């Protein structure tokens, strides 16, 4: 419907619409404490439902919600400050953290490639999945560079973030991971911003380390991808 497309292409309207649904999703999540009701997942599905019912084009919504997308960039830059706040902790553990994230990144790229191929996925899909644990802006760059489908990468990355945030604490408890640094590092490395939003709830150390590991994982994966693809 043309009138609806015009309404949703209007930035003030769509900003209020998205932020309103997000706030309601956060309130619902806080009240229920159900992992599956993660605010990102709930807001995504509610918005898709509303756009579908009102017959709004995705392009109109993209135009209206541009500013929220744009904030992803500055927020990654601002993580530099979050990093700085934990600088002494980070300095003492820098070598172990760089090693752990690099090994994690390697395991991530290799495992997702082998499993996806084994289950019959084509190379375009495989390339789209390889940066799945990396934060969206970096993942999109990697996906595009190596012949993936960026829209698929965007969706997989978001779902991995939600999935990691939901199962992460449970898996870490079950595998006996007690170190706060290891817990934060694993949450951010496996599930980027999604994992970090959950790590912030665990504690200040976990949150800051998780924020740091988003950057480390992005850099490690961007650097390892060309190498790994030579052998796979």
């Amino acid at each position, binding site marked *: 419907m043309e009138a609806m497309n015009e309404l949703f292409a209007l930035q003030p309207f769509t900003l209020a619409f*998205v932020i309103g649904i*997000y706030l309601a999703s956060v309130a619902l999540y806080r009240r229920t404490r159900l992992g599956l009701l993660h605010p*990102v*997942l709930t807001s*995504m599905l509610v918005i*898709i439902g509303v*756009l579908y019912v009102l017959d709004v084009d995705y392009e109109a919504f993209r135009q209206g919600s541009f500013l*929220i*997308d744009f*904030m*992803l*960039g500055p927020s*990654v*830059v*601002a*993580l*530099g*400050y979050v990093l*700085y*706040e934990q600088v002494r902790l980070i300095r003492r553990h820098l070598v*172990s953290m760089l090693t*752990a994230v690099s*090994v*994690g990144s390697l*395991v*991530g790229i290799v*495992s997702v490639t082998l*499993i996806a191929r084994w*289950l*019959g*996925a084509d190379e375009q*899909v495989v390339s*789209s*999945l390889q940066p*799945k*644990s990396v934060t*969206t*802006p970096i993942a999109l760059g990697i996906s595009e560079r190596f012949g993936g489908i960026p829209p*698929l990468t*965007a*969706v*997989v990355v978001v*779902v*991995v*973030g939600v999935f990691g945030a939901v199962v992460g604490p449970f898996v870490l408890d079950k*595998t006996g*991971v*007690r*170190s706060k640094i290891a*817990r934060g*590092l*694993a949450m951010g490395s496996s599930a980027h*911003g*999604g994992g970090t939003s959950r790590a*912030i709830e665990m504690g200040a150390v976990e949150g800051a380390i998780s924020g740091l*590991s988003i950057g480390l994982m*992005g*850099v490690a994966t*961007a*650097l390892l991808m060309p190498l790994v693809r030579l052998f796979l």
Partner: protein
Amino acid sequence: MYAIFVIFLFYAAGLLLSKVIGGLIPGNVLGMLLLFGALLAGWVKPEKMRTVASFITTHMALYFVPVGVGLMVTTRYFAGATVAIVVASAVSTVLVLVVTAWVQQILEKWKR
């Protein structure tokens, strides 16, 4: 305002540097690393960054929502490979989680 200026200054510097190195590392990640370095070097006043930086990073989850809504137009790209995508992503995510945590925890114990 200082904090907003600093964030965009380093974001812009990161984007430029990214172009120079052929897009190997995205600009926002380079901006993050540059800001981190500038704070360590004492070029940026950390006490003036706190409010804005913690505000925009606390609500990071919101910024993923519009990209995720892209699901409504991308399903046709991967309709045939849904099982492979779901299984490979889920298993690999748990592997990254466990391996990263274990390597870190073992290195911490080994160091003591």
